[in-house]
């Protein structure tokens, strides 16, 4: 059908505008970000049935299909459970621009929580990162916080 000779006559239509959203963070998520802003610490929520602590807090424990309402104050420290140093170019959904590489994505078990929280780790040298390392959250200055996941800048490796 299409030969190499006339391939450049085939057209495309580009659409490069982002679709805007204004997602409600909801009651539990709002408390999570408020706690970070006010006290620079995490807060989780405990299931009354299986006693699991989830961070960030949410309304329902899926396995128990139970409403949770016991907030559990946590600290700003946790343990690295998995990580990846990312090297490929990627459009940052926050800015629409290209995110500088490399950066390190981490799965972090916050102290006192049973599930895993994810964020950026402030180290991109693979030889210096190990699962099991202790981490501490670094927050933006309080006056710059916006109730946003980037209010946490990243996690520093502390040991």
């Amino acid at each position, binding site marked *: 059908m299409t030969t190499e000779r006339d391939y450049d006559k085939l057209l495309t239509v580009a659409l490069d505008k982002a679709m805007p*959203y204004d997602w409600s963070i909801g009651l539990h998520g709002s408390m999570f970000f408020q706690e970070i802003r006010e006290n620079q610490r995490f807060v989780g929520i405990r299931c009354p049935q299986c006693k699991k602590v989830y961070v960030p807090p949410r309304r329902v424990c899926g396995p128990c299909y139970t409403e949770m309402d016991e907030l559990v104050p946590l600290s700003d420290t946790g343990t690295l459970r998995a990580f990846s140093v990312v090297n490929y170019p990627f459009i940052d959904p926050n800015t629409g621009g290209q995110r500088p590489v490399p950066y390190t994505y981490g799965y972090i078990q916050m102290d006192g929580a049973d599930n895993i929280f994810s964020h950026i780790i402030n180290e991109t040298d693979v030889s210096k990162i190990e699962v099991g390392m202790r981490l501490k959250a670094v927050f933006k200055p309080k006056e710059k916080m916006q109730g946003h996941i980037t209010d946490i800048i990243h996690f520093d490796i502390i040991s």
Partner: protein
Amino acid sequence: MDNIAIVGVAQTKYAERKKDKTCADLVFDVTRAAMEDAGLALEDVDNVVTVSNDFIDGRTISSMAVGDAAGAHDKNISTVEGDGAFGALYGAMRTLGGFGTTLVVAHAKGSEGDVKFITNGMFEPIYQRLLGLESISSSALQARMYMDRYGLTEEDFARVSVKNHANGKNNPYAHLQLDVTVDDVMNSEKLADPLKKLDCSPVSDGAAAIIIANESHISKAKTKPVWVRGMAHCSDAYLLGDRDLAVPQSLAAASKKAYTMAGINDPMKSIDLVELYDAFSYMEPMWLEGMGFCEAGKGATLLDQGVTAMSGALPVNPSGGVLSSHAMLVAGLARIIESVLQLRGEAGQRQVENAKTALAHGINGACGQAHCVWILGNQKK
């Protein structure tokens, strides 16, 4: 075919913005309430169908994000991207295909995205989408074609808005509770000629859930079963220009199939009330024509004769319809839920007396490309 029935229903109040609740929170509210309504525990629910749309949620494979909140953890979960009436149809098929009970849940938060962008995204991207066609402007074209074909006026449509908003005042779940007159509709903001603001449904946040049970599982539920006596769907061409926009042929085909399944020869005689998808005022008379309640072009006459009023022979949209609450995707399921409440005799101030058989209707795609028709009854046959 086995007999199946709807044994549990729940919906949120519809509202402009539910900022305190995420989509999962809304889904949790209605799934839990539907189980409570049915008197069923989570173990009694054999499988879950979630209904959502990625553009509305702004999330890829949005349907999978609400499984936990729908009680689907460790259950068979499947998804429908489209109107809730079609999600319910799929749920009914599963209930006929071996599952004892199926929970169907739909959610939408129109407040979080840009609805004009989202509905613009329905259209064919090369020739139509970049011209800006979206839900309101495409419907304006359909309304104009309908008016031109049958000599209808904007006042004909305004009277639909007046009737349905008056009905909505009796529905505690309705988003809009408005007193409006024909003059109010005619003088409301011109959005896309011939459609004014009060000809158009609001954009709502909300969620709804139903539980469908096979007859073999019905005794577990505490509610009076509402039997599915007929159901069918049919789709027309995708491109607006390939369809006769003034004649809903796919609705006529779906209705005919559903009537045959329910053993209905004369729908006007056999059906006590209709809950249809009036996203815009002009749709109500047009859909009534497609459903065979009158000849083509005579839908507005039914209203003028008082037939579709609460006191008439065929009350249409006693809930206030989609014109009073429009959570996208949820709206078709809400039509089924209102029909169930009417058939159980639990519709409060908007109760249609002696309602035994109801028609519930949902649409998918621009200008009613596809139609889903349900015939529900409080008697099995």
